[in-house]
């Protein structure tokens, strides 16, 4: 179901057409939660697929936000850079 919905979602987004006739006239916040959940999930999966294969989180982590965050921290080395160096030209300092 996910792949087909993903394809439909992309077409709808790019053509500004309603995703489905039954949703015509509805604001996004009025979408049935089942549909918004499936779309959110699809967007999430698409964003993972844009990553290089080795950085894509394994499927078992997809619905675990904490583990997912830890995965990204690890593969993107997000927590290791704790020191920053700025080169300052003393002549540019005021005072």
């Amino acid at each position, binding site marked *: *179901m996910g792949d087909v919905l993903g394809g439909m979602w992309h077409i709808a987004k790019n053509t500004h057409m309603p995703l489905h006739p*039954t949703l015509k006239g509805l604001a996004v916040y009025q979408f049935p939660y089942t549909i918004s959940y499936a779309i959110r999930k699809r967007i999430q999966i698409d964003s993972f697929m844009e990553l290089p294969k080795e950085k894509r989180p*394994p499927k078992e982590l997809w619905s675990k936000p904490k583990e997912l965050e830890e995965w990204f921290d690890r593969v993107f080395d997000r927590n290791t850079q704790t020191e920053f160096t700025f080169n300052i030209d003393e002549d540019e300092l005021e005072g």
Partner: protein
Amino acid sequence: MAKEVKLEDLFRWNKSVDIKDRKGNVLKTVYVRVAGDANLQEAQNHALARSRQIRRKLRDEESLEYKALFADLESRSQSDLIVGIIASEGSKFRDEANEELGEIDLPDLPDDPTLEEREKFQEDVEKLTNNRTEQLQKLIEEKMQTRREDLNKKDVQQLQDIYKVARIESSCFEVYGFEFRSYCVYLNVFSDKKMAVREFSNYDAFSNTSSLIKRILLESYADLELSEEDLKN
């Protein structure tokens, strides 16, 4: 065999429901739809408040609710208490087993697969899904057995204490679930086809309606809703 969820099921999110009398005459037609995200939040807040309220009452030994729930506590035998505890903790075993098993690790379908590779992939997915269902059931039974053995070592007083905690927890869980579903239904039953006018002016009006009508509406709503498991697929 795992149930296959079709895309059209996702887009079948509203329907008309005929309310009939005992003779089958249509008294009224209403329109039911699946809740939106904002509705879910509202229903969740309502259900949490009700669950909190009932938990407070069930912890008060003087309350009517406590007396009703634990009226037979003293007369329950050791084995009866164990059965009651295991039954009340049922959803916990399922959650733990699900967590331990994790998601199904599907094989990779090669880029540009041949028809035969797709057939094989479909077969593998079915096998893995069915295996997981069997493993899940086995793991739940193992967990229940471990818990049973652990409870067998306790004396009656200890079992009564555990029973009370487990029953309060499961009662609150039931209240939460029922109130959540009921509130979603109350917010999503309309008297017009455009689904702009709510059938019930407030939640009390829904609660006080006949139990037969409520049952019809709850079942109609459930029929439209896909489970979380279905949505993940």
